[in-house]
């Protein structure tokens, strides 16, 4: 395997994206930030890969105009996944591993405020049997949270503790769209939203975009004395079938972790759009008690669709860059109730 590192990261997260019909124009300044961080121009980028969703944009080929944001000529080596951009990062990492390119810029974007997100996401379900019933994302997460409570794996207080810690940490994150103003008691006193979930247990509907630069070997060292080297990356998926899965588990997260060495991870940015899902992931990834979880505030304080997972990888990488951690974990999820997961372990090296 080649040594590949995260060497650039830019993001925007907001409750609503006023003044534009889409997120594409948001990408141009994000690319500019990545160029400023690396000292590169678009001609230094060997491969481009994005993650987005046509359904979120409400039309076909929503990624096509995003390519315009890269620039016009010359043509680029480019691809797209209809998934969170964390999987675009995986495709870019593969491309670098083949030796075809040394650098890549990965981006994701999603404007959830244009529609009713929980209704839109119901269209991810089996169209022949489940979609006609419109069970929405939040309700499905509620079922998952209840299953864990009934099984004695967590309780509402443990969920509130996750939310409280996230909101407190988010006070230091300029991109968070929700932060502070909580105590566990306050949170537990708030009304139920989708029993047993309260609003703070659910990620806020968020618009946003993000970009990450990957580079191999000396190209990474050219940018930084302390790049975030990817020492392990893996992804798995579970069956959708809500009735037969054990919703308190996420085997695909455990399988992803098993392909990487998570020993010694100090910081983990987990893509857990619901508070109880952080508890599921902690168990599946077998994270030690002293691992700092989501110091950025995590998805509960800002979760732009199709880039929420990529942001977790970027936030984790930043802890390596600034020297506050030597080994970190970025995680992404997709699909209802943690169906699909990706794990990316990064390390700083002397």
């Amino acid at each position, binding site marked *: 395997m080649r040594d590949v590192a995260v060497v650039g990261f830019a993001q925007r997260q907001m409750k609503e994206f006023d003044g534009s019909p889409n997120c594409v124009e948001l990408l141009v300044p994000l690319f500019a930030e990545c160029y400023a961080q690396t000292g590169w121009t678009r001609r230094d980028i060997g491969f481009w890969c994005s993650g987005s969703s046509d359904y979120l944009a409400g039309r076909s080929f929503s990624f096509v105009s995003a390519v*315009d944001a890269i620039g016009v000529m010359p043509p680029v080596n480019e691809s797209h*996944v209809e998934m969170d951009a964390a999987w675009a990062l995986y495709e870019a990492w593969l491309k670098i591993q*083949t*030796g075809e390119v040394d650098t890549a810029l990965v981006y994701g974007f999603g404007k959830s405020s244009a529609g009713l997100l929980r209704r839109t996401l119901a269209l991810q379900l089996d*169209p*022949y049997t489940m979609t006609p019933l419109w069970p929405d994302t939040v309700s499905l997460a509620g079922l998952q949270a209840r299953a864990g409570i009934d099984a004695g794996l967590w309780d509402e207080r443990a969920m509130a503790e996750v939310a409280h810690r996230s909101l407190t940490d988010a006070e230091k994150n300029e991109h968070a769209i929700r932060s502070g103003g909580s105590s566990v008691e306050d949170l537990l006193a708030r009304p139920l939203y989708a029993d047993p979930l309260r609003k703070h247990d659910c990620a806020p509907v968020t618009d946003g975009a993000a970009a990450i630069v990957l580079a191999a070997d000396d190209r990474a060292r050219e940018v930084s004395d302390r790049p975030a080297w990817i020492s392990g990356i893996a*992804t798995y998926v579970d069956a959708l079938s809500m009735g037969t899965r054990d919703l308190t588990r996420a085997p695909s997260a455990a399988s992803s972790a098993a392909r990487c060495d998570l020993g010694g991870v100090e910081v983990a940015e987990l893509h857990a759009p619901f508070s109880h899902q952080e508890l599921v992931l902690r168990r599946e990834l077998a994270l030690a008690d002293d691992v700092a979880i989501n110091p950025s505030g995590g998805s509960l304080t800002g979760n732009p669709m199709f880039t929420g997972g990529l942001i977790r990888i970027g936030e984790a990488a930043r802890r390596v860059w600034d020297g506050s951690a030597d080994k970190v974990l970025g995680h992404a999820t997709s*699909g209802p109730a943690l*169906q699909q997961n990706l794990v990316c372990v990064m390390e700083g090296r002397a």
Partner: protein
Amino acid sequence: MGKLPAAVVGVGQTHHRAKRLDVSMAGLCREAMDRALLDAGMGLDDIDAIVVGKAPDLFEGVMMPELFLAEALGAAGKPLLRVHTAGSVGGSTAIVAASLVQAGVHRRVLTVSFEKQSESNAMWALSVPVPFNMPVHAGAGGYFAPHVRSYIRRSGAPTHIGAVVAAKDRQNALKNPYAHLRNPDTTVESVLASQMLWDPIRYDETCPSSDGACALVIVDEDTAQASPNPAWIHGTVMRSEATSSAERDQVNPQASRDAAAHLWKQAGITDPFTEIDAAEIYVPFSWFEPMWLESLGFAEVGSGWKLTEAGETAMTGSLPVNCSGGVLSSNPIGASGMLRFGEAALQARGAAGEHQVDGVRRALGHAYGGGSQFFSMWVVGSEKPTS
């Protein structure tokens, strides 16, 4: 380091029809997958990862269908990637699957792409108004017709060339048991007599709208060497350019020319016309055959139509193009690119049945998408590449 060797050892596709009422999306994918696995002599337990591709989700009305298809695709408990690069997606999906092997991450990857267009309405799915974008709601034919007119004007091609392509591909389709359109009496004259849709594109010069899927099994060197007839991957490429800009040449896009140049270099090919023995080129409207022949470097600019007119692209010619019947005969959009890649692999493996060209050593698979802006291509060969 360079790419590790990889090869196609299994190819499967569905019977293509306007409406496959007998199968669900899952059933459609399984029909192609089961044939590919049978061809490879493998079961799903032998497969390490699944890569799935399709064109816009609005074609079937399901958001990210790979999530509900995970079990049917045999992906539950395995890695799953979903690719979407417009009309080129079938080719791009095969390339991503190949890269999993070429990068040394997995040894045996199954890739499948599909479109069940009868579940929805492609024209509607492509015609959602987008603020601040050009309102081009004339369908794909309306978008591409000006490119064709421009090609005819620039090259001085006689106006019957498109009909030559259509008659050839529809006749070739009769040799392909999986083809959607099976019109035994198609001739140049009958194509020219068909209704004009988007001048100069006539009805019989357009692709159908199909339900269908294609699947490939792509494996590492050791596994390939145990296979009786692997199609070795000699080169892969993807290139994209923006939708609109004054300097775009939509008849012969730079992304297409750049992609071809990079592909031939990887495959060690200096004269594609003599060194490629069979080509599966994405031709959804007949005139794209001469246009892409030029762009890919098979002919000088302005003279692609001469190859077509002289019969050089017929099965008996020196560069047989679309012996399977091509996109003109079957077009399940998300799968169409992979069908081109898969048919190229069948030719290199000597496994194309009635539409096999004799003695194929190297074959081209080609796909394009968007407004002639996304390109994916590969060269596969009967022998392991030397470099």
